[in-house]
């Protein structure tokens, strides 16, 4: 059976009359009621003392500290050069002299140096790589 199909009214008269009473139209407020409510609200809030603006005494120092910290983080890479692991001789650039330094350390210390021939070759091929993705920093 289709529930949306209109059914003939079969409710008992008492229930039907109570439902009709509930189904009446909404009350409409006229502009005079709105104005009265608005004026009452204004007079109420006008009588309340204004709350003073509260600011923590730590707000200014904390803000300044945060600003300094942010500036330090942003400027750090420009001021302090982070040495690359490939910059063996600490010259600030990675080139064949770093490969030579690594090879000399390997020759002097042998296996105890912890430097392998593979690492030396890898660095050597990185410094001659044409593509930036494979190039030494």
């Amino acid at each position: 059976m289709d529930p949306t199909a209109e059914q003939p009214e079969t409710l008992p008269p008492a229930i039907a009359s109570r439902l009709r009473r509930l189904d009446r139209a909404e009350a409409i407020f006229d502009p005079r009621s709105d104005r009265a409510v608005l004026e009452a609200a204004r007079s109420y809030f006008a009588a309340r003392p204004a709350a003073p603006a509260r600011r923590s005494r730590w707000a200014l120092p904390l803000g300044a500290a945060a600003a300094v910290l942010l500036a330090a983080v942003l400027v750090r890479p420009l001021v302090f050069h982070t040495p690359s692991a490939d910059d063996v001789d600490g010259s600030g650039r990675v080139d064949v002299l770093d490969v030579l330094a690594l090879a000399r350390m390997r020759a002097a210390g042998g296996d105890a140096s912890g430097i392998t021939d593979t690492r030396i070759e890898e660095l050597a091929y990185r410094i001659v790589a044409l593509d930036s993705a494979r190039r030494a920093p």
Partner: protein
Amino acid sequence: MSRARVLHAALALLCAAAVLSTPAQPEAGTFTTVDVFVVSDTPVAAWQVELTERRGAMQIVGIERGDDSTFRDPPFYDRVALERSTTDRIVLASFSLSDAAQLPRGKVRVARVHVRATGSAQPDYEARLVAVGTADGRPIDAQLSLETQPER
């Protein structure tokens, strides 16, 4: 039509077919060797050079070490560069752990690059010395020069 004329026509057709079926020879290009020299009064233990062809029209077909046997053969280079049909540059580098007394000084040929130049214009090479150092790893001032020779 005589038999001789028919025979001549058949021969001409055969010759034409033979000529047309011969595959076209690829353009050979110009092969040159580019010798890279480092000039230094101090014995050289490590060097790094960037070789550029300004028009970007060189094909590197081979790389050899220089005259001094204390350096490895061949120098380090990007192997991808040899797989490319053309490239505009290549970086070469090598080092030696020999004693300073055995290392070369003066004008030393450190590498020979075999290049196939494409196009009709003369190749225009430029080299830059990236780094040169002594046996103890100290950087030194040195000069660089190139010499090109046609191979064929």
